[in-house]
């Protein structure tokens, strides 16, 4: 059964102990992002979009370890996280393309994805906003004595904003069951991290809150999963939050047409040698989990499936004007 025809919860469950399923999801994210990039270039997508090319392993590593009843606060760079958590390419693409079948009816767009059936809170386009929000979700779990753990995923640039400091401090003081994941992809928009932050090893900032800080190779989903496991365990045991810094790299520009001319020469190429798809593929081959041919076939199938998802989404209707008046308050507003 193709992952793309499963329900979001099934798509999530399938990841847990299945390296091939994980690889397949990473491929899906990779080709999804490339599709979106093309659609944007062709003017079929309105607004802006932030791709996570190169960061697929982090999303999938987290999702593989996390139960669906655990809340996640993520960001505008959220397609990969959404797909990894289980949302289907159909609803994500429909949202990005402004269709009423999109995960939030087409009124949100690329930066605003959500599916509570797999724990994804509305992604925020405000840097750092999700950090206290995840702490708050953890506060609900702690207060209601639920066993879930909340997760915040945010960028290296976000580690410089006040909400980072306040969110981590609050979570530490209250020993909240939350895991903070910095997706350190080396850039905030067009600025390399060394221009805006005194050092690059952001997990060291955990010391300010008296909580563990760990760093993990974010290009390797297995390592990510292992790191998450430990952090989730701590949280469940009442030991409070962990700060995980995943070292990744943004293969694309910041958004839309950014070609990232500001990169030091050779940096991208260096990182591409550790392309998460390559890392996983090599492991699968080494373990004999599949043959090179099988993996190539998998990739081809996924690309085809995404093409048909695109056809399907293209044929979907836009929301009616009335849709913009829905879901502002619990009670429908009368005008």
């Amino acid at each position: 059964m193709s992952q793309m025809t499963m329900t979001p919860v099934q798509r999530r469950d399938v990841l847990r102990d299945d390296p091939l399923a994980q690889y397949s999801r990473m491929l899906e994210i990779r080709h999804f992002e490339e599709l979106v990039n093309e659609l944007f270039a062709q003017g079929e997508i309105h607004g802006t979009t932030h791709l996570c090319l190169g960061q697929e392993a982090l999303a999938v590593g987290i999702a593989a370890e996390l139960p669906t009843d655990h809340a996640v606060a993520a960001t505008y760079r959220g397609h990969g996280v959404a797909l990894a958590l289980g949302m289907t390419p159909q609803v994500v693409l429909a949202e990005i393309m402004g269709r009423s079948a999109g995960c939030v009816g087409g009124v949100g767009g690329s930066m605003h994805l959500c599916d509570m059936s797999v724990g994804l809170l509305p992604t925020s386009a405000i840097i750092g906003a999700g950090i206290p929000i995840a702490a708050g979700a953890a506060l609900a779990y702690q207060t209601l004595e639920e066993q879930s753990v909340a997760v915040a995923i945010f960028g290296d640039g976000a580690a410089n904003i006040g909400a980072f400091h306040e969110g981590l401090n609050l979570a530490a003081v209250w020993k909240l069951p939350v895991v903070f994941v910095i997706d350190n992809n080396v850039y905030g928009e067009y600025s390399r991290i060394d221009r805006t932050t005194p050092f690059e090893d952001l997990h060291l900032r955990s010391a300010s809150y008296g909580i563990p800080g760990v760093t993990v190779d974010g290009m390797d989903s297995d390592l990510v999963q292992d790191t998450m496991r430990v952090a989730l365990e701590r949280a469940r045991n009442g030991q409070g939050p962990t700060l995980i810094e995943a070292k990744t790299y943004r293969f694309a520009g910041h958004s839309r047409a950014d070609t990232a001319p500001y990169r030091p020469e050779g940096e991208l190429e260096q990182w591409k040698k550790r392309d998460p798809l390559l890392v996983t593929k090599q492991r699968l081959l080494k373990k004999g989990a599949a043959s090179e041919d099988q993996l190539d076939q998998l990739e081809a199938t996924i690309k085809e499936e995404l093409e048909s998802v695109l056809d399907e989404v293209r044929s979907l209707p836009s929301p009616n004007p009335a849709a913009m008046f829905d879901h502002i308050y619990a009670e429908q507003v009368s005008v």
Partner: protein
Amino acid sequence: MGSMRMNQAIATALAEEMRENSSVIVMGEDVADAGGPFKTSEGLLKEFGPKRVRDTPISEMGFTGAAVGAAALGLRPVVEIMFVEFLGVALDAVVTEAAKFRYLSQGQVSCPMVVRASIGSGLGFGCQHSQTLENWVAATPGLKVACPSDPQSAYGLLKAAIRDPDPVIFLEPRALYASRGEVVTGPDGLLELGRARIAREGTKATVVTLGRTTSLTRAAAQQANLDIEIIDLLSLVPWDVKTVCASVKRTGRLVVIEEAPHSGGWGSEIISTITAQAFASLDAAPFRITAPDVPVPYQRDLEALYLPSESEIVRQLESYLVTGVVPQPWWTQEGIAR
């Protein structure tokens, strides 16, 4: 039913809602051990324990943001912002996150949270601790905004705010915390968000008030025996257009009395809306009685002048009722401002 101060009415409402619904929690700076800087949460820690009544670090952005996440996951947090100015470091969480979470999830997520913030002048706290700042939140689809004017309305509206499925900003006039009044508790004491109340009946002009200006205006009307209809708005978003409009259609005149500076306040929204809807009924220009466009001064006499005082309200209303002409505020008088 009993007589209590407004801060006690608030603590009572909080306690009752916490008893009724175990998902209600309270957090803020010194709300637990100390019972709140204005004693609006006295007794809660003792009754409900430290899990549901939480002292926070000084991190308005952090704990207001946390309230959003907590609300999304099943709690009903009531957050205390000690002085409304502190929303200046936390506005994102309410205006840009909480207010939009229902929309951005198409109904999957709701944020039943209340942000209580004390507002206003009158206690000598100086210009960074005396504003009302309704304008920071009032133009936000997705938020509701309420503002009580006495112990009863504090009790009744706060309960409604806590029960509301959407985020509510609850602005408490600080100068009224110590004011006493009879409070009907229980179901009969509950009020509805979005509903104004007629605080005095009258025929010659409709005078709309909010929070602290309600009692001031009532006292002014009594003192000078003014035949005015006072409408205490109680909710700013949504506000009770119907009640105000119906009254203006009867009286033909509209005055709004605000505690804040003249420019940019909520009063113009009332006037603009009502003028559009009831222009033909107006027999004189509607106008606002407000504070001047200055930061709130500290010194006692100056601060007392800042607020539209009872005597200023009498002076302006009397003149308006007689002449139908918009009166000049005190500060345009010779020798005041240049």
